[in-house]
């Protein structure tokens, strides 16, 4: 079950009713049961993996907390890390590594192929493994105390709104909320409902309407001239943003209605004036995770300039690998790392562009280049798309003289209406988000009369129904990670 599954329309109200009918001190049981039900609706076996991670980290953290011996604490931390990363390795990276080794053998003329595992990747495993690891590391670092309540810790790992695609919560922010008396808060719930509606808009109206063109262009790039591929890359940037941030908005909104708060994960990333700024606005919970648990422990920017550069590169390569077991993701991470290394080097020489009408589009273009690797099936596919982008310009210009040719070149065969709705949706979203970031939308909504507000809600709901793409089965892109 996902948020755009019709079953969620039944599941979520039932969870709300059960939650608020239950005395506050037992609500964790309702939420834990609902979370496992939500996760196991994909595949019941997934519940066992989730439970295994939970038990492992709960016990490890307790043992770390109990022990005064540094060696013992470290040993239990290693148990947790090896267990979690081992699980991730088996499910996500085993085949990738063994397949890559086999490819090297083949390149040297050997026909040896290493055996591969036939396992289905549990949905969202990278998210909950990282969330769970952060708990044992924080206990080890004495940033948080280990909890004695297994059920509430299990809920921290499995909390259904953010279980499969984040935001990746830290024990310091989410765990204490399960020990507090979280009552129904009408103001928080209203904010949550707004966030959920906004998330559905991003996902159904923008991301899913852009999907047909993007999918077609990336599936058969040779059928399209360069400018169309450039357009597809730019639209993919928005498709993945609206898909992922839409999910996050729904997750945060659902948690709000239940009385909990999740961290901000996106903050208008395409308004960034540099790649460094982009990474402070994009998938913030993952970027900050890598900063705190990889980059800083590696030495961060405390060493020499070359050490800082290698730390940055290593962090981004790992971040790429976290996304998927494919060289395309590693290269995606690597290019982002190189961008940051260059930006830092320029900044040290006093060369900064600052936020301007020039730097924002430039940053967007640089990020779009990386998205081509992220979206393409293979590295060679990504390279061929990028190489093709500058080549079809004469064909594109000549096509502007004929409507039929233009329809094909602009990929209008793939649903002009959906494309137009998607593009108009982007303009609407960026405008609203611009005013939201200045607090104007919230202020206007709060001061509007009730009839005006409800009329707006109804109009928004109807627009969502009319403009949303409900036909295809578009799962959230980040579920695969």
């Amino acid at each position: 079950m996902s948020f755009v599954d019709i079953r969620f329309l039944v599941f979520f109200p039932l969870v709300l009713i059960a939650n608020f009918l239950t005395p506050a001190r037992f609500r964790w049981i309702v939420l834990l049961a609902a979370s496992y039900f939500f996760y196991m609706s994909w595949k019941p076996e997934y519940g066992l993996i989730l439970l295994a991670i939970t038990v492992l980290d709960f016990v490890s953290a307790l043992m770390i907390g109990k022990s005064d011996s540094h060696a013992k604490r470290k040993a239990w931390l290693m148990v947790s890390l090896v267990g979690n990363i081992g699980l991730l390795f088996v499910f996500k990276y085993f085949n990738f590594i063994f397949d890559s080794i086999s490819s090297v053998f083949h390149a040297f003329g050997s026909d040896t192929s290493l055996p591969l595992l036939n396992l289905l990747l549990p949905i969202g495993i990278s998210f909950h493994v990282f969330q769970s690891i952060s708990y044992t590391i924080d206990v080890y670092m004495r940033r948080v105390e280990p909890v004695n309540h297994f059920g509430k810790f299990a809920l921290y790992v499995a909390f259904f709104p953010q279980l499969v695609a984040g935001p990746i919560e830290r024990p310091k922010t989410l765990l204490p909320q399960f020990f507090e008396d979280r009552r129904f808060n009408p103001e928080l719930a209203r904010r949550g409902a707004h966030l959920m509606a906004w998330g559905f808009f991003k996902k159904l109206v923008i991301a899913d309407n852009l999907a047909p063109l993007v999918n077609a262009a990336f599936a058969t790039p040779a059928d399209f001239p360069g400018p169309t591929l450039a357009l597809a890359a730019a639209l993919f940037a928005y498709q993945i943003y609206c898909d992922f941030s839409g999910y996050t908005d729904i997750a945060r909104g659902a948690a709000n209605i239940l009385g909990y708060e999740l961290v901000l994960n996106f903050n208008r990333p395409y308004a960034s004036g540099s790649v460094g700024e982009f990474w402070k606005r994009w998938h913030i919970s993952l970027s900050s995770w890598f900063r705190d648990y990889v980059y800083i422990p590696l030495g961060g920017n405390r060493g020499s300039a070359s050490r800082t550069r290698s730390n940055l590169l290593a962090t981004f390569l790992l971040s790429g690998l976290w996304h998927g077991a494919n060289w395309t993701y590693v290269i995606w991470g690597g290019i982002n790392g190189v961008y940051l290394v260059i930006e830092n080097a320029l900044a040290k020489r006093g060369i900064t562009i600052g936020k301007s009408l020039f730097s924002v589009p430039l940053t967007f273009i640089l990020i779009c280049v990386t998205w081509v690797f992220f979206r393409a099936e293979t590295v060679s596919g990504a390279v061929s798309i990028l190489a093709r982008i500058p080549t079809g310009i004469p064909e594109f210009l000549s096509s502007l003289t004929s409507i039929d040719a233009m329809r094909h070149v602009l990929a209008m065969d793939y649903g002009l209406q959906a494309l137009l709705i998607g593009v108009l949706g982007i303009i609407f979203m960026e405008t609203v988000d611009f005013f939201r970031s200045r607090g104007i939308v919230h202020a206007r909504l709060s001061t509007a009369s009730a009839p005006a507000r409800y009329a707006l809600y109804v109009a928004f709901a109807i627009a969502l129904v009319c403009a949303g793409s409900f036909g295809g089965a578009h799962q959230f892109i980040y579920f695969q990670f």
Partner: protein
Amino acid sequence: MLTQEQKLFLRFSCKAIGLALVAFAVVALLALASRNSDSYARSLAKKESLLGATAAPRLIVMGGSGSAIGFDSKLFKEKTGVNVVNTGVFAGFGLRFIERVIVPHVGKGDIVLILPEYELLHQPPGGDGHILLETVLENPSHVVDILNPHTVVAMTRALPGWFRGRLESIAHKISGKQSSSVYSLKNVNAFGDIDSPLLDESIISPEDMAKATESFIRPQADSGSLETLVRMTASMKEKGVKVFISWAPLLESAPTSTMQAAQSREAELRKAFPSSTFVGSQKDFMYPAGLFYDAPTHLNDAGRTQRTQKIIKLMPIRP
């Protein structure tokens, strides 16, 4: 007694439900207001009245739109003297709907020719949500024949897409754009066939036709649909009805995988029914791209003449 918190939650829920109901009511009103008196879905009612009015001996053709557009009832009657009622409307109705709505009209002495299109067999027997929704709105008396938990979910899923389609057609009407679709009630003739001068040509290129065909046939039928087909055939035979099954048109230049899927489908059907039930084999109903109209089971005028002639030749009935 409700606690203060529960009262607040109840108030919030009532507001949310109220808003959802208002939004639903507006959408429903718009949907009802946008009903189309010339909708092709309304041909169902016309076909039911033809079933009541057509005298025996009669051939009742059952299937989807491929039957409506791809069978020449007038030609059949001229050559055999047998009256014809072509009941095919949409494959998306699903076999269960055909079983509930059409089969009760069939009685002793009737001859039934089932032309099971690929969708009819590979989709679940409950049907396609979009089509069922259109059918319910245009033929409200059939609500009882459609409603069950599966179809409610399917229709709810289809509601936004259907609604967008209605808005588009309203926009077309307002802008004065005339629809050139052959799929309208006015193009359904006295036998139930779709008959339009537009069917003279093929509006899909051979390349697109091959692509469309590739995704059209699955090697295995949905088990529920196959069961429904077996059950409805048996129940008609029990009533003394002669039942025949023939084959949907297939592009003769279809990709190998499609051909293999079609062969596998034919073998599956032949296993489920006695051989005397079948009219010819799949290879008797393969046509070049030029004989199709707009989709992999929709023949144009020349195509349906060829198909009907073949059925007349192979079908063991003489008046």
